[in-house]
């Protein structure tokens, strides 16, 4: 009996150990995200105390009417936002990621990881170039691409016309899977809005418009502290942007509604990234959540000008892809993996550059992080950005962001080798607005000696 018991306890111990091991990453994630979340909440709460405003409150009727009237022109408001501090900046987030450690990491695991000299210290599995080539096979040199083979020097009969024709066929058959495959070679401008909607399975049903109206009503009725933060964020970023300033008002509408959207938050129930919460005071007794997001709405305004459609597309893109850029997870498209992928690609295939930059105190990730965390929006020209996002949809992955970041460094390698400070490196990489995304990706993946 004693033997059985001890066997049993051994077995139980082993099972528990195994369970612990398998839960490792989610534990890690929860811990890390938990402390990140606490930090944000703490900042929010101290702001509330300082400014003596509640995290959330119901608007009085007069105020509701006023907001409804100026729903379409919130950009022209000039409230005093000077006291509102940004709750966090990408830099802060990067610091958190850098400090992630895996406590159960065994040194014997990955030899190559031990020699990893980048900032990320979590040994997640990332692809190397041969694997990326397999993955992104449609970007190969002998396959037509929009963003390369539609330039003015190339006669349209060679690729473009046929590609457009195929796109129209895919749309008329409403084949979502085919659309996703098709868009790997890029989308013609005129077809893009419909193709994205098809891939994201968004159709304009009356109930979708109603849903948006409902969210709008929530915004009108309740005022959240984060609204001011949204407002400030948009004011600072979009209104100063050369392309997106035009859509400032749309951004408020979409983001304010987004912050009320509980269906987004139910998505997070299955994800370790639980967003910070705020509560409506007073009679509701419900929990209303506030979510943090980046301004990735703006490029979408180039495609959709009907608010509820714009909203749906944005929400779907966020829930499928972009949320992974602001939450800590081990997912291959999560920001941690992207950072690691970027660093690994650089260190493996551009070692001289990588070491040089490291020597001068310019860890490459410190520069490329802000590009990746915003999926390059605000850094590339709009048409290039849309071509990049075509591929995100086509491959259902954000890994291409890391590959592009590495490709940009490769492209500017000569200049970067000559800089002697982080500031100088930043200057070399400050302006990406003239870059052509597809040639860069193609050359990096398929035309570089590995």
């Amino acid at each position: 009996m004693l033997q059985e018991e001890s066997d049993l306890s051994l077995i139980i111990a082993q099972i528990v150990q195994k369970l612990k091991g398998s839960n490792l990453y989610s534990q890690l994630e929860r811990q890390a995200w938990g402390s990140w979340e606490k930090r944000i909440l703490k900042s929010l709460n101290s702001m509330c105390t300082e400014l003596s405003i509640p995290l959330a409150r119901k608007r009085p009727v007069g105020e509701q009417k006023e907001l409804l009237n100026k729903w379409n022109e919130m950009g022209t408001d000039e409230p005093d936002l000077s006291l509102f501090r940004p709750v966090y900046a990408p830099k802060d987030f990067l610091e958190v990621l850098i400090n992630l450690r895996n406590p159960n990491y065994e040194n014997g695991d990955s030899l190559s990881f031990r020699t990893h000299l980048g900032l990320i210290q979590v040994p997640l599995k990332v692809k190397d170039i041969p694997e990326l080539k397999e993955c992104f096979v449609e970007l190969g040199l002998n396959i037509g691409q929009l963003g390369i083979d539609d330039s003015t020097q190339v006669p349209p009969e060679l690729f473009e016309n046929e590609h457009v024709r195929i796109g129209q066929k895919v749309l008329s058959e409403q084949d979502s899977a085919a659309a996703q495959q098709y868009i790997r070679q890029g989308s013609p401008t005129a077809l893009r809005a419909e193709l994205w909607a098809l891939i994201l399975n968004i159709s304009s049903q009356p109930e979708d418009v109603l849903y948006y109206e409902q969210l709008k009503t929530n915004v009108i009725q309740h005022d959240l502290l984060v609204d001011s933060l949204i407002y400030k964020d948009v004011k600072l970023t979009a209104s100063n942007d050369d392309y997106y300033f035009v859509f400032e008002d749309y951004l408020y509408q979409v983001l304010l509604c987004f912050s009320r959207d509980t269906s987004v938050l139910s998505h997070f129930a299955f994800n370790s990234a639980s967003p910070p919460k705020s509560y409506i005071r007073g009679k509701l007794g419900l929990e209303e959540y506030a979510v943090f997001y980046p301004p990735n709405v703006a490029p979408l305004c180039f495609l959709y000008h009907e608010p509820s459609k714009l909203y749906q597309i944005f929400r779907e893109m966020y829930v499928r892809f972009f949320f992974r850029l602001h939450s800590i997870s081990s997912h291959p498209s999560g920001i941690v993996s992207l950072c690691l992928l970027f660093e690994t690609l650089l260190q493996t295939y551009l070692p001289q550059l990588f070491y040089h930059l490291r020597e001068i105190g310019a860890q490459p990730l410190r520069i490329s992080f802000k590009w990746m965390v915003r999926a390059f929006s605000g850094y590339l020209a709009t048409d290039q950005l849309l071509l990049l996002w075509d591929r995100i949809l086509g491959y259902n992955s954000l890994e291409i962001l890391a590959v592009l970041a590495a490709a940009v460094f490769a492209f500017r390698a000569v200049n970067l080798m000559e800089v002697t400070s982080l500031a100088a490196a930043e200057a070399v990489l400050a302006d990406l607005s003239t870059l052509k995304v597809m040639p860069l990706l193609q050359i990096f993946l398929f035309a570089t000696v590995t």
Partner: protein
Amino acid sequence: MAGKVKWVTDIEKSVLINNFEKRGWVQVTENEDWNFYWMSVQTIRNVFSVEAGYRLSDDQIVNHFPNHYELTRKDLMVKNIKRYRKELEKEGSPLAEKDENGKYLYLFVSQSNKEAYVISLYINNPLLIGGRKFDLRLYVLVSTYRPLRCYMYKLGFCRFCTVKYTPSTSELDNMFVHLTNVAIQKHGEDYNHIHGGKWTVSNLRLYLESTRGKEVTSKLFDEIHWIIVQSLKAVAPVMNNDKHCFECYGYDIIIDDKLKPWLIEVNASPSLTSSTANDRILKYNLINDTLNIAVPNGEIPDCKWNKSPPKEVLGNYEILYDEELAQGDGADRELRSRQGQSLGPRAGRSRDSGRAILTTWK
């Protein structure tokens, strides 16, 4: 210093002066022997006035045509357009028959009440982007009117209003209130409204193709080119085609929500002031490309040259209309957007294809 171009200007703008200096040109005064004079519109009046008795020599070039006001003054423009249309009718040109010709009213914005000559068509359905009204500024270089040779600068831009557009009947009287909902401020040669930011024309094109489709967008741009060429053709017969002259115009165009373009006005002296760094770069490059075409090789000019620069020096300009080439072999040589049109001769196309038919421009 033999062989260096001697320049004068009465417009103290760095985008000009930097361009002269980078070519190694030498600054002189008006009273000395000069080869190149970038002058304001007031000065050109003096230079070519009967009293002044100015005679330009073969190695002197100026940046205005003597009677550019045929194009830039709205009353004269109307007169010229009317005359041009009558001529087309007489010739039995298919263009004149289109009842759409009636719609080629030019929208003139005017503070005066000279009803006699002003045709005011009020655009109450402007195309809005992000709920904002905007207009287009395009630069057009004319090197000669007879034969007509003109170039369009590829890097035009849209100027947005700061405030949202909200039509209201009480404000219909005053066109400008629809441009801005605040008091109007005159800005020198720009027409009156407050600019709230700019887009490039290529950005506009991307937006319109994405939201409206390729065909209608291409048609819009074709119509814009057509309007510009028509305006130049209309004044060509009365323009003093002095061979010492070239001119860079600023065309202001507005688009309505049916994607139809309307000409607001033509500026003979487009602003060279820059509000931002990007602005400065754009205007610097504009002058650079303009000088490359007007003063070939940056050398002392000979006004008798054929004014046909090689393709390589065009920079950001592209040929908008070349009358000689157009009449030469029947194939269209005018500006065509790569996206919208196929290459090749278009004889025999029906009228219904719209103004994409460039051969009917002859």
